[in-house]
């Protein structure tokens, strides 16, 4: 069967059906739609499967390739395990939003042109914002808006880049580019916002930990890894990415070491892990790109598993701070086991998925004789074990006894965790099926005596460092300042100060020139102020909206 419709449509249209049904039908839809989308993704042939002419642009809503299939496979698997984990616990809004979100991610992977990519990109932004919002707490509401602002900003930058690219080249095809013109720099910047690059990395640890237990699981998978996909296809071998990636790697480690909230530790470690992928894309050889793609695949699974185990703890105890947790291994053995398997996989422990994926990136650094990069990557590999591999399970499940004795979570959460724990080990022991999906032929053998010895040494001595230095890592009830301080504190102060100054100036003008000047100012404010007719952006906004509606209608109509 050859599929020529975007597999994403199954999830997007299916999501709209969810509110209309309940009970078993809804459960069947939630679990069945991701599997249908997976089957559809595998039916997409290589090359362009659908072309649509739209307002003089030639769109390619469906274009298959090996790397698209790889990412689509793991996105669909993730949507399945995520909905399984969420069954019965999450709100309808979160379920609908999660499917839209996953659909957006799937849409990007098969986008052959930048306009299609952009439409699905923005759908992801909306879906993910609603996933955060669905947690229903005031903190989640505020975090979702900060999150949305960043992603709308990234979207605007990306859109400007796409428009510039079209003006310059007359083409909107999504292919490998060089960052050599303003337009392409803007496209790169738009991708980098979503990948969690500095200075805006903070949107990940700010927003994800405020989502519901299941919401954070969905969030961990799609946005950053879709951005990894677009960088992999769009900007392979861009040297800047090596250093951006390394920055993200160490930023993630240092902030995770300082953090007390268990899910925020994992959020920082998303930045850290995505940093490895970005670095690999920057190195840009076949080995490095394979490593980045394989690591994205493995990462989605073990990171979701880690957030599932943290979500299970949160769901059963209602607590999220390491300083209030501990000793849970006694009553939550399965959650502890699954969380530990996820922690070993993220640390690239031999016989787990991380071992067979990340080592391709370090190998690429060796092959290219990048000494500095290699020494930093090896130090960072040790640091991953430190901040995620040991710190997370130690403070949540072991350390002091918190006195809490919650049981393991309900069956569906346990099933989702066992499925992904199984995959973490299966991929580590039998890497061949994963290697066969990679964009380039694989000539890499992960299991050699030398590699096993060096990895065991590196990790176990990192573990020794952790326990020796444990007194330096005593948990404190703190957060760490980050770039978001500038828009949450400094920006607010500046705005309030300007407002105060404005009111003072107005009073002074009225005092000097009389009441008529005041009326003139009021008139100006009415037309040019934030809500004034002349300051409105709605004509542009509504035009963009209607063009998107037109595009969606046309897309649907082309199948009828």
């Amino acid at each position, binding site marked *: 069967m050859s599929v020529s419709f975007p597999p994403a449509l199954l999830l997007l249209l299916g999501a709209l059906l969810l509110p209309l049904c309940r009970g078993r039908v809804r459960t069947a839809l939630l679990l069945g739609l991701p599997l249908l989308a997976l089957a559809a993704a595998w039916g997409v042939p290589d090359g362009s499967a659908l072309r649509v002419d739209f307002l003089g642009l030639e769109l390619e809503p469906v274009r298959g390739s090996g790397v698209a299939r790889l990412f689509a496979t793991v996105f669909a698997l993730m949507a399945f395990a995520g909905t399984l984990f969420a069954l019965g616990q999450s709100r309808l809004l979160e379920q609908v939003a999660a499917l839209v979100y996953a659909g957006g991610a799937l849409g990007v992977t098969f986008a052959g042109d930048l306009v299609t990519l952009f439409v699905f990109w923005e759908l992801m932004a909306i879906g993910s914002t609603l996933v955060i919002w669905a947690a229903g707490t005031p903190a989640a509401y505020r975090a979702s808006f900060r999150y949305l602002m960043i992603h709308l900003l990234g979207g605007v930058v990306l859109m400007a880049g796409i428009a510039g690219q079209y003006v310059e080249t007359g083409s909107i095809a999504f292919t490998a580019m060089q960052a050599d013109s303003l337009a392409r720099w803007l496209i790169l910047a738009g991708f980098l916002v979503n990948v969690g690059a500095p200075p805006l990395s903070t949107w990940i640890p700010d927003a994800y930990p405020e989502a519901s237990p299941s919401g954070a699981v969905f969030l961990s998978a799609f946005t950053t890894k879709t951005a990894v996909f677009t960088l992999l296809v769009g900007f392979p071998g861009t040297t800047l990415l090596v250093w951006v990636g390394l920055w993200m790697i160490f930023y993630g*480690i240092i902030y995770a070491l300082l953090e007390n909230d268990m899910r925020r530790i994992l959020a920082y470690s998303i930045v850290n892990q995505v940093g490895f992928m970005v670095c690999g894309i920057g190195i840009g050889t076949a080995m490095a790109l394979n490593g980045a793609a394989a690591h994205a695949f493995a990462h989605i699974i073990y990171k979701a598993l880690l957030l599932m185990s943290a979500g299970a703890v949160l769901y059963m105890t209602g607590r999220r701070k390491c300083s209030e947790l501990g000793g849970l291994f006694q009553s939550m053995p399965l959650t502890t086991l699954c969380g530990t398997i996820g922690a070993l996989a993220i640390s690239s422990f031999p016989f787990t998925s991380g071992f067979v994926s990340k080592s391709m990136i370090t190998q690429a650094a060796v092959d290219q004789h990048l000494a500095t990069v290699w020494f930093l990557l090896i*130090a960072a590999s040790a640091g991953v074990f430190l901040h995620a591999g040991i710190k997370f399970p130690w403070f949540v499940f072991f350390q002091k006894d918190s006195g809490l004795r919650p049981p393991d979570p309900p069956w569906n959460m346990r099933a989702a965790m066992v499925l992904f724990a199984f995959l973490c080990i299966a991929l580590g022991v039998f890497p061949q099926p994963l290697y066969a999906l990679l964009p380039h032929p694989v000539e890499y053998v992960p299991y050699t005596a030398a590699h096993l010895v060096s990895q065991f*040494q590196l990790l*176990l001595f990192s573990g020794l460092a952790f326990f020796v230095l444990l007194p330096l890592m005593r948990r404190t009830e703190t*957060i760490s300042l980050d770039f978001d301080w500038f828009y949450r504190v400094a920006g607010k102060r500046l705005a309030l100060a300007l407002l105060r100054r404005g009111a003072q100036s107005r009073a002074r003008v009225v005092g000097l020139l009389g009441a008529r000047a005041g009326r003139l100012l009021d008139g100006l404010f009415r037309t040019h102020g934030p809500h004034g007719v002349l300051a409105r952006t709605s004509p542009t906004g509504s035009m963009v909206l209607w063009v998107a509606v037109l595009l969606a209608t046309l897309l649907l109509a082309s199948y009828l």
Partner: protein
Amino acid sequence: MNDRDRHWLTTPQAIRRLWLGYLVVLVLTVLPDLFVAQYEHFGIDDEFGFYAGYGFLACAAMVVAAKLLGKWLKRPDDYYER
């Protein structure tokens, strides 16, 4: 909580044994360096116990760096709610 309620893994004897076992495993990971040749890519990465020493020192450096940065960056966790 009295001693009988304690999980066996949390008793001092068990913790001592875990440490001992861990140290034995650490020695076992370094010993193969005597007969498994590591590739030399960058001058020192084939030395005896390179990965052990480098991993330990790198982690110690990161913990200390985090500790120092923490003095400057840490705030009470209700900082943004106030």
